[in-house]
């Protein structure tokens, strides 16, 4: 067997593996709608997340009868869960106003799709971390399966977080972002130190100090950049003027008659 045959075998093997993996996920419960939900929201703001569940009896949900459950950290989470049949008609509906819901899914009862929506307020957050934004995230929706034997398994891709912020924290984060970028552009160590200080302030929840420190870091970078730019332009101007004077001097010299005889 030469190398062409062996490489062909490898390619075939890879294709087979890809096909098997894809087939494994085709049967999973499909959740659509998180794309339209907000990524971030201010603390106290009311947000809604709406999704539609299809393929309710896939490979990862082997039972024909199971319980769908949902959780949310949103304040006063107001759920609306509608189970529909193949024709899209409502078969079952729950709308509890608390932190979780449960609804039975049954193939025999012709349960085909589920529409879920939750509306609630972004709660206060206690911890801030500039470098690890997950700390600032609120669980907006988590969908899970309760099997007949009472096991709880989170559905694949069934979790959605919303980044929470306050007005101060957002301003401070933006200021730090800008200052960080400016410090990296200018490759300034002192500005980087200032940015680190600002991040420490941010993580401690002292947003005003964080924003001030970040802004002053950015200003110092910009002013030093301006000075540098001014120097460059000044130098260029001096060179240009020098060249000009040289050219004029050369021209005037060349215009002078140098004839010895006439």
């Amino acid at each position, binding site marked *: 067997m030469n190398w062409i045959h062996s490489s062909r075998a490898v390619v075939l093997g890879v294709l087979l593996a890809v096909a098997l993996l894809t087939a494994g996920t085709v049967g999973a419960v499909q959740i659509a709608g998180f794309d339209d939900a907000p990524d971030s929201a201010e603390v106290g703001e009311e947000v809604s997340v709406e999704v539609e569940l299809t393929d309710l009896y896939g490979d990862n949900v082997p039972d024909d009868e199971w319980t769908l459950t949902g959780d949310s950290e949103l304040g006063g989470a107001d759920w609306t869960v509608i189970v529909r049949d193949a024709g899209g008609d409502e078969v079952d509906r729950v709308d509890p106003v608390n932190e979780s819901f449960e609804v039975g899914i049954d193939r025999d009862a012709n349960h085909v799709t589920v529409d879920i929506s939750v509306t609630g307020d972004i709660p206060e957050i206690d911890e801030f971390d500039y470098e690890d934004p997950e700390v600032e995230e609120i669980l907006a929706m988590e969908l899970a399966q309760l099997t007949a034997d009472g096991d709880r398994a989170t559905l694949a891709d069934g979790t959605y977080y919303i980044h929470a912020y306050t007005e101060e924290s957002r301003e401070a984060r933006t200021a730090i972002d800008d200052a960080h970028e400016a410090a990296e552009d200018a490759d300034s160590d002192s500005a980087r130190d200032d940015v680190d200080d600002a991040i420490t302030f941010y993580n401690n929840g002292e947003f005003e100090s964080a924003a001030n420190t970040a802004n002053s870091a950015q200003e110092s970078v910009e002013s030093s950049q301006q000075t540098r730019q001014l120097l460059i332009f000044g130098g260029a101007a001096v060179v240009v003027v020098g060249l000009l004077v040289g050219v004029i001097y050369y021209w005037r010299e060349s215009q002078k008659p*140098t004839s*010895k005889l006439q």
Partner: protein
Amino acid sequence: MKLAMIGFGQAGGKIVDKFLEYDARTGSGIVQAAIAVNTARADLMGLQNVPQESRVLIGQARVKGHGVGADNELGAEITEEDIDEVQGAIDNVPVHEIDAFLIVAGLGGGTGSGGSPVLAKHLKRIYTEPVYGLGVLPGSDEGGIYTLNAARSFQTFVREVDNLLVFDNDAWRKTGESVEGGYAEINDEIVRRFGVMFGAGEVGLGDDVAESVVDSSEIINTLAGGGVSTVGYDAETVEEYNSGGLLSRFKSNNKDDMQTANTTNRITSLVRKAALGRLTLPCEIEGAERALLVVSGPPEHLNRKGIERGRKWLEEQTGSMEVRGGDYPVHEPNVAAAVLLSGVHNVPRIKELQQVAIEAQENIDEIQKESEENLESLVEDNEDELDPLF
């Protein structure tokens, strides 16, 4: 030829100033040192190229820096008194590097006219280098006193220098030109002529060396016999060939003979025009004791035959066998001939100048004699009845 130039008086200072400008502009390297001497502070301040430390103001005790007012006897006296101040400036000149001194002066004025012969006498006593004079004669319309000054100074100056090169303003004055423009043009003419003549032997780095070099000794020997000299000059614009070009090599093959003939004719014609029509001091060239011919121009426009014919023609015309000649290659589209005629005798202009000077002298004497009588008759009353106070 490297010269130490001393400009005496207003005209002399200006001409030396021009020489410096010419030297810097053309790089001919003839002015080794330049000194300006004057009794008038304003004239010294008007110079542009003479270094400050080489400007010597003399006679401050007598005339307070205001000049001698065309009194050349006073100019001579002051120079005699303050000769050490002039010598002080000359002491800074590296005399071992120069070939000759050249004292430049207008002969019609006061300071230069009176002082330059005194300085010449002084320099000749101290140095072994030849001392030449360049004297500028005033125009005949400039007035009797200037003519008288010039005639007297000329006599003395010729006696004191090794050779006096003369430039006659009268021959060069054109009608209708401004005072400043007129003198500036005349000074340009002076500088160009003597610049070509004295610059001929000075070869710098990268210059072409002449076929027949006019060395400073040639000039010195031509001027050696003393007396009065005049310089003739004429130039013509020519097309400069690009001798290194491929095209010109093809071209020149066909036209070589014709060009040689043209070049020869051009040179002889220039020599004739220079000697007969364009002398600094118009004179009869017959009887000139010695002559020197310098033909200058792009090397391809100079040829030995032309120069030899020009030289021969000069021998015939002057009747002198002592005619030297050479070439001075320069890279510019002009061909010029400069003729130095030394020991010229037949100069009608000098005779005319002397005649006018004699008349002026007589007139002055007469007026001076009458002056006392006239004043007396004016001041005294007829019957002498009045007495003076004391």
